[in-house]
């Protein structure tokens, strides 16, 4: 997502990762059952409060969202025009909002589009806060407790760690070939694919060579010596966690109740 994990001393960072995942479930629940864009603003508040406590670098999040805005606008417009507003059970759903080239946009369609846009944007924001406050390995440890085999967890964490490494190697290979006069920009699509060999071959051979040496290094650290290696990470709920958990559970129940009563949906 937009953010990488950063180790910080904030109230939210210090919570147990499981608590933060429960918070995530609360948000997913609300985003899933509510379709009313106004009610979704409540979700936004529940997203933002921990985000602010965790001192989220909002600028980076905004930078990530910015290129999405035109797409969102297009989505909003399309829904406003195309969505069958008569299906919605709100007053004035079919009231025309504006017309473009003879095509009518409805209020209902607009609201539904707004709801979709909010769902997408809020999902990005809350997952960014999650990735910023929960280290990836903790997620793996939790999944391991839930039955994910150690080998799978290890492969995932190693792959995760190697992403930046391979990005560096890729950049280096591109530079090395540029220094030999390679100009991919010069070619059309076909030429570009053809000339990419100069980058792909060294990249793959380096990666292959690396896997072998890495396997050797793993063996040298007794990887696979035991079926059940020690899991070092210990999770412990503190009083703070219980408070947040209770709040989350109450909010979940409340959201469901509100929906059953008949609010929150278009």
């Amino acid at each position, binding site marked *: 997502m937009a953010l990488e994990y950063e180790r910080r001393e904030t109230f939210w960072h210090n919570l147990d990762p499981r608590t933060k995942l429960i918070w995530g479930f609360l948000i997913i629940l609300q985003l899933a059952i509510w379709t009313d864009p106004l009610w979704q603003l409540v979700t936004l508040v529940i997203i933002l409060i921990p985000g602010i406590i965790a001192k989220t670098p909002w600028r980076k999040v905004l930078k990530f969202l910015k290129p999405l805005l035109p797409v969102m606008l297009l989505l909003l417009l399309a829904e406003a025009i195309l969505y069958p507003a008569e299906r919605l059970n709100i007053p004035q759903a079919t009231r025309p909002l504006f017309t473009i080239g003879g095509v009518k946009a409805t209020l209902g369609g607009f609201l539904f589009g707004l709801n979709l846009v909010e769902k997408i944007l809020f999902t990005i924001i809350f997952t960014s806060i999650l990735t910023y406050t929960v280290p990836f390995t903790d997620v793996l440890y939790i999944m391991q407790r839930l039955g994910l085999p150690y080998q799978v967890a290890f492969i995932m964490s190693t792959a995760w760690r190697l992403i930046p490494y391979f990005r560096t190697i890729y950049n280096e290979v591109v530079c090395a070939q540029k220094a030999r006069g390679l100009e991919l920009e010069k070619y059309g699509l076909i030429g570009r694919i053809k000339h990419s060999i100069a980058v792909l071959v*060294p990249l793959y051979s380096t990666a292959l060579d690396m896997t072998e040496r890495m396997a050797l290094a793993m063996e040298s*650290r007794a990887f696979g010596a*035991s079926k059940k290696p020690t899991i070092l990470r210990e999770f412990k709920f503190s009083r703070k966690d219980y408070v947040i958990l209770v709040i989350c559970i109450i909010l979940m129940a409340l959201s469901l109740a509100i929906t059953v009563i008949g609010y929150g949906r278009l």
Partner: protein
Amino acid sequence: MLTDYVIRVENVTYYYPNASKPALDSVSFKLRRGEILAILGPTGAGKTTLAYCLNGTIPHFITGGRLIGDIIVCGLNTKENPIRVLAQKVSLVFDDPEIQMFGLSVFECIAFGPANLSLSKDEIIRRVKFAIEACKLKGLEYRNPSELSYGEKQSVAIASALAMTPEVLVLDEATAILDPTSRMRIYNTIYDIAKKHNMAAILIAQETGEVLPISDKVIVLNNGRIELEGSPHEILSEYNKLKNIGLRIPQVAELYYRLGQKGIITRTVGAPITIEEAYKIISSTLISRKGLLEKYNASLKDYSRGKKGKGKVIIRLENVHFMYPKGVKALNGVDLEIYEGEFIALTGPNGAGKTTLAKHLNGLLKPALGKVIVFGEDTKEKSVSYLSRKVGYVYQNPDLMFFNPTVRDELKYGPMNLGIPLNEINRRIEKVSKKLGLEEYLDYSPSSLPRGVKKRVALASILTMDPDVIVVDEPTTGQDWLESIQIMNILKELNREGKTVIVISHDMELIAMYANRIIIMSYGTILKDGSPRETLTDIDILNKASLRPPQITELFIKLSKLGMPKHVLTVDEAYDIMMKYCK
């Protein structure tokens, strides 16, 4: 007692799969607890193969070869025990830290091994603490390994090997990429661990000058055989043999041998391995000839070989700043003029910004602030491909550029991109391959070649583009002494033919021998820029840049108290001075 030895290698011969020649040939040795053994030898001598035999990589991981003889590690025969059992006795550290760190924090990386053994949590934490203490990594426990410097990464790799609480720690070229200060720090760490915790260590390295002082025993391998064996002093006394094998001989030992041959000093105690020992020997010689001391006029003018500033300026950097995406400042206001025909060495610690600076010279990187003018043109306005006709850049790792089926195609690729006519390309290939001794390899696959040849192919593939300036990033890293000398001689010859050569290196002894201008960088700025004599004798600046002067320079700075000139750069100079003085 039998268990006295942690390692017993008994008449071991090993053939790799499908090999007709053995990689190891009747090798035997023993190692005790607390001993440090240095294994020296040129590329391809069998050093890494031997290391692989010690922890069972051979025969359990690399299968299909033929292993004759026995290797007993703490009473366990490697043939009968799997790597994971042997890994608790012999712990290997490789040259590339990236491939041996498993975890998203330093703590996790170090705990990886013990966790694999299913040890209790308390025991793992105890071991990690011990390893962090021993490798001086306190305060970095929760850092992401990708944020660490190269030296710190390698320390983490060593710590994770230590956390296995092995009886023997094996470092296979583990310090090759490090700058001199980081390297010394690692060797000191190993020494402390070995002596304090009575652990045996095996050091496989090319840097004889740094390894020998902390070693108890030395084995010199050549073509898979043990050529020499003994204490560091004994080994260094075999000057001619070492020279024949092509081993790097510490400068003080070389001077000692050459002076001894002329009868200037009496060779009694064995060759010196440290500057202190050499100082003792030479100063006593000087003092015995005290009457001559005043006569010697400490002037070194006749040794100057610089021609700095003679040619015209071909590259100019004006207040260049550069920052990497993550906000790491790599260049911080660099001003520099490069003259035609210079042989420049760009030096400094790991992460000083040397490579970043060099990548500005052909436009691979464009300055965030400031200007780079190459042959009168601003690099911001030109493509890398255009600039590569003027400035060639040879990458440190040749594997990152090879993708063609043969060396010939590899040499063809650059000039083809520049649109050079085919007959001209063929002419260049012929000329360049002849000069670099690559004729016999032209039809080989580049990736199958030995490391030293690969380096030359990489250089050749840039030379066929016929640039005026050649930038070579770390030409000698990972190379043995003969290969290093060979590639530096090629660069020297190119320089003599009129090419401007810029070398990135922190091998101070080599650059003292070849460069006519040295630029010392640290933290993205130029600390000092001048002739080798000015730069390499400025101890304060070198310290600031985590560098050390050549051994011989350091020796003569000490001797300058006795009236010797202190700006001595090479063994040849030192020898001439001593000869003149003592005649």
